[in-house]
Structure formats: structure tokens, C-alpha cells
């Protein structure tokens, strides 16, 4: 865990275990983990794979800023967010949001909020590669 960073953009497969270990402190009764995974269709059209690109130097700090927003709104503990970039096969995890809190309702609310904000402002882009060979950026 020596190189663990709570907010990270990476081209390596994501593993929730180190994020959960990082966020959980003895005062926490709840840890909520959200995994966003590549699914095999969008709006009924079959997807072959996804690729993600990020403005990495900015995206990491934006993820940390979103976590601070959540901490200002709810009595929660630590937050960690890892987002993957590059090519993802169906079923691979694109993003992990992990929130610890003394109580579960705040952990759920904060995790959902962090994910909503990522989709609003984090400089990360998804390209859908359809099964028929076409590709397009989701905008």
C-alpha cells in the first residue's frame, strides 16, 4: 500500500480491497462501494468494448475536490475514488467510489453524490465501441 493514492486515474485493473482498507477507520459503521462496470449494451445497441480517456493531471484533483464537497454535506469519513482509462472489456470496472461513515444513510448518499458529480465535472471521457464496429464519444 506504500504507493496507494485515494484519488487516482490508472490504466491498470481496479481492485476495491485497498480502497476499502484505506477508508475504514474504527469509528465507521458503514462502507459503501460503488463499482461502475462496462456493460454489453447501451440503449439496446450491443457494445463490444469501451475506452476511457482522462485529462489525468486535472482529473485526480477534481476527484479529491468532489470528495471534499461530499464531506462538507454529510458527516462521513474517508473517501477514495479510482478511475480507469484505456480499453475496457465488458464486465471490467471503470470506476470505484468508496465511502466510509459512522452511519449507513450518509455513506449511501455521499457515494451516490460523488458518482453524480463525477459524471458532471470530472474530465474523463468514454468512447463506446459498438459491436458493429462503429465508435463514438459519449457526450
Amino acid at each position, binding site marked *: 500500500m506504500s504507493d496507494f493514492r485515494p484519488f487516482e486515474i490508472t490504466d491498470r485493473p481496479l481492485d476495491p480491497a485497498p480502497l476499502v482498507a484505506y477508508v475504514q477507520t474504527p469509528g465507521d459503521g458503514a462502507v459503501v462501494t460503488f463499482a*461502475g*462496470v*462496462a*456493460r454489453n449494451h447501451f440503449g439496446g445497441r450491443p457494445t463490444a468494448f*469501451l475506452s*476511457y*480517456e*482522462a*485529462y489525468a*493531471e*486535472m*482529473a485526480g*484533483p477534481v476527484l479529491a475536490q468532489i470528495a471534499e464537497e461530499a464531506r462538507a454535506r454529510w458527516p462521513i469519513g474517508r473517501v477514495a475514488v479510482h*478511475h480507469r482509462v484505456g480499453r475496457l472489456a465488458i464486465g471490467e470496472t*471503470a*470506476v470505484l467510489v468508496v465511502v466510509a461513515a459512522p452511519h449507513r444513510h450518509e455513506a449511501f448518499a455521499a457515494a451516490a453524490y460523488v*458518482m453524480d458529480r*463525477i*459524471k*458532471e*465535472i*470530472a*474530465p*474523463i*471521457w*468514454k*468512447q463506446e465501441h459498438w459491436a458493429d464496429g462503429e465508435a463514438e*464519444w*459519449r*457526450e
Partner: protein
Amino acid sequence: MISVRVRYFAGHRDIVGQAEQQMALEPGATVGDLWGLLVERHPRLAGYSGRLLFAVNQEFASPATTLHDGDEVAFIPPVSGGV
């Protein structure tokens, strides 16, 4: 003149044909001025006007932000992180 580094991502990069470029601007030029210049050069960027975010030196900025020599400017098309 000042010189800024411009970063392009996703759909913008596809239109502009490069991931970044160095550009010379009049002193006092704003982020909005630079975007206007780019839309002139690459008319297909016009479709993004009004629905993009701006960053200067990796922090969110507005079209009114004044640019300085050495700044890194990013035009951020609609983001789609997560799934």
C-alpha cells in the same frame, strides 16, 4: 504576444487532429477569445459552444478568465466518466 499551451480531448481532439498545441495570443486575451479563435479555425467545434467546461492550469475557469504567458488551457467537452 503571450504563448499558451492548449489541450484537446475526446471529440475535440478528433476534430482538431492533435492532442495539444502551443498558440500565440494578444496580451489580455481571455479563455472565451481563444475558444472563438478555435471555432473559426475548426467550424465543427461550434457544436460544443455552450456545453463545454474550461480549465486554466488544471483548475476550472470561465470564458472571462484572462490568460497569461505559459498558461495551460483545456477545453473540456461534455464529460462521461463512470459508466
